[in-house]
């Protein structure tokens, strides 16, 4: 057990409207094995019920609790306090998104980017009526590193290009586009390329690699964007 100081961003839409929000400090005795989400829940249940954040699964699979921790994006539920290496810990909402309340941000613009890339398998050849379509293990392996995405927003929120250009599709949506474009079963490239071959699409990425660093699942959206560029150029030839 050790005492840590948490500096947490607060914004109450009823009281703080028109301001940039404030920072509130909480001293918490952190138990062995506690994650940041454990701390946030502890504060909410036993110290200050007004502290507001999103959370669900609590073990890094639902993607609800993306926040900025000591300046770096991550999921609160799988961030071990002792691994942060500091006694003073700052917690802020994901940047690049409008704050609704405290650590809760408006993710709608982020989801809109996903909808724009046609985030679903497009197949015109009818599948067999009494069985699965076949896919070789090698073809299936191309989806590894892409299908695991949680849509937590940590990548897009960390992207300086997205901060500057809110129409940029962003790493998450483009990773999603790559997932389908690289699926041997997908026949939707001609449709999907229209959405991504755009100045706010694949060409806007400056390969800064913040998204790679931010992804809690260690996925690589930058590489996916490069693959999409290659496919797009190949299609133009």
């Amino acid at each position: 057990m050790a005492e840590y100081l948490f500096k947490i961003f607060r914004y109450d839409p009823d009281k703080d409207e028109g301001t940039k929000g404030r920072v509130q400090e909480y001293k918490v005795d952190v138990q062995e094995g506690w994650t940041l989400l454990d701390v946030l829940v502890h504060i909410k249940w036993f110290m200050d019920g007004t502290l507001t954040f999103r959370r669900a699964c609590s073990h890094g699979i639902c993607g609800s609790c993306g926040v900025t921790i000591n300046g770096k994006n991550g999921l609160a539920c799988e961030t071990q306090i002792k691994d942060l290496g500091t006694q003073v810990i700052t917690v802020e909402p994901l940047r690049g998104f409008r704050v609704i309340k405290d650590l809760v941000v408006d993710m709608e613009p982020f989801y809109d980017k996903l909808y724009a890339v046609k985030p679903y398998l497009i197949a015109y050849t009818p599948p067999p009526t009494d069985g699965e379509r076949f896919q070789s293990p090698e073809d299936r392996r191309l989806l590894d590193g892409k299908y695991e995405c949680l849509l937590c927003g940590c990548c897009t929120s960390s992207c300086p290009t997205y901060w500057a250009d809110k129409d940029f599709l962003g790493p998450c949506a483009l990773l999603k586009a790559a997932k389908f474009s690289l699926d041997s079963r997908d026949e939707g490239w001609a449709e999907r390329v229209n959405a991504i071959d755009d100045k706010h699409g694949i060409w806007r990425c400056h390969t800064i690699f913040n998204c790679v660093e931010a992804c809690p699942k260690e996925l690589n959206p930058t590489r996916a964007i490069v693959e999409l560029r290659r496919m797009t150029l190949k299609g133009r030839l």
Partner: protein
Amino acid sequence: MSEKFGDYRGSFKCVESVPPEEAKELHEPVGVDLHNVHRHDAVIVGAGLAGEYAALELKKAGHDVAVLTKIFPTRSHSTAAQGGIAAALANLEEDHIEWHFFDTVKGSDFLADQDAAELMVREAITVVYEYEHMGVPFSRTPDGKIMQRYFGGHVKDFGRGPKVLRACMAADRTGHALLHCLWENCVKLGVRFYPEFFVLDIITEGDRCLGLVAWDLINGGVHVFHAKAVLFASGGYARLFNISTNSRSNTADGLAIMMDNGFPIEDLEFVQFHPTGIAGKGFLITEGARGEGGYLINDKGERFMTRYAPSKMELAPRDIVSRAEWQEIMEGRGIGGQEYLYIDLRHLGAEKIKERLPQIRELSMKFAGVDPIEAPIPIQPTAHYSMGGIPTDINCRVLADGKSKWLQGMWAAGECACVSVHGANRLGTNSLLDASVHGRRAGKDMAAYLEVVECWEPLPVDCAKRAIEEVEWVLNADGDERPGDIRETMQVNMYRKCGVFRNEQELTEMYDIIKDLQRRYRNIRIDDKGTRFNLDLEETIELRHLLQTAEVIVAGALNRTESRGAHWRTDYPKRDDENWLKHTLAWRTEEGVRFDYKPVVITRFQPEERKY
């Protein structure tokens, strides 16, 4: 058994029907802004596999469907399922629907309704192929088919043979792959979602459901959803326990709302404890880890399952493995005498672990500080799944009396429902299957119903009253008790006193604790008095839902004086078919819990002794 979906023609008429164009003016619920009254053909609560599958079926049939979820759809707890979805595809070796049927019934300790179980295993094949066609990134066999793995309780030849490869898998992220795929297809078809809407009540008149009332979490405000057809796919309640695999959002909302409205709940005493939750936390280590060959070992390094299930060992069903673990712990063979054991994967080798159990490796590194390639993972039984729920028929229609009378206009599917396909104990990989098959069935049946029913029934003007009163009461609650204290007391005690092993004394103590917590709940205060994104408000109402549900679980566990499946009474350690081969129906009233029973549907397999 009916494979058909509702031939509803001529079966009933709308009473006092109002043409849709005139109807709006007639239905102005008191206390609700008219902009907050929504009308859809069908309204679904919950966006897990059951809710989204139903939404797709309704949308494909051309109906206007809305899905309410208190979180964003892809955060639903189906995403946390890991190991697989069962279907006798026989992609790698011989398998048959009938074997899957038998295993499900035997796994249920013969409490499953066999007509429903048979239907589920038959439709399993269709559902898995549909998933593949929709785009699920299943793992593949060398010849390109859907990969399947071993799971507990799934065996060959009507229980007589060895284990069988039946669990269709996407590595160890199967739930995530299925849920995201369904959501993607909902996006494709333009299903209307209301994310971050928290359901507070259903609207009924007589034995008919007319819609529901919900709270808009982001903006605040009570909304009324007026619908011809309502589906609850609202999930389970295992957050009642402090050691749990479940999401913080699994808080029994659907069950409690049904109880509030005087409807019964079925078989709630059957709570599944998963044998391998990360020690002290409860997070899931998939049964697939044992399916791939993982061992369970105690402090002496013994594979203790030899004592409890010498034939199937670690792949015995979950109730049996969880009891074996707890027995080892009670007899002092937990690791270092503590309340945990080990699952050892080291002999599988790094390659297999990385290829087939990548998420397990990640979870144990992040939450147990252990790389399973190098060291065993500390585990303990963890609250996981509700076998019981809202009683429905095989077309997922909610039964107002729990037995035969339909609550017209209402369906339930997934973990919140009890068809019953799982009886007293669910087999691993049958939950994704149940949610998918019954979500699909509910959607098809609702679509058939909507073909016939053209009108919305007028809403009672006071339909939102109870919900508004509850929200106002919570927002103004200014007593002395913190909801957090009440919740923690409930969770810690439920795991101790209403867990893997139960007895009359501890259950009676637990019942008194719950009654005391319910009294304390009336004297709570909450800090957040605002209306916008008030998580304090939501969690406090969820706590009421949990306390009510806990009361029925404990009362049911006290009432059932036998041991069957996941419900094990040390003071009644035998299954008692003479008196208890029947489903419990429980009504929660202010005076306590009232019980009734209904027979188990037995079509093919007579109850026999259950050994593995």
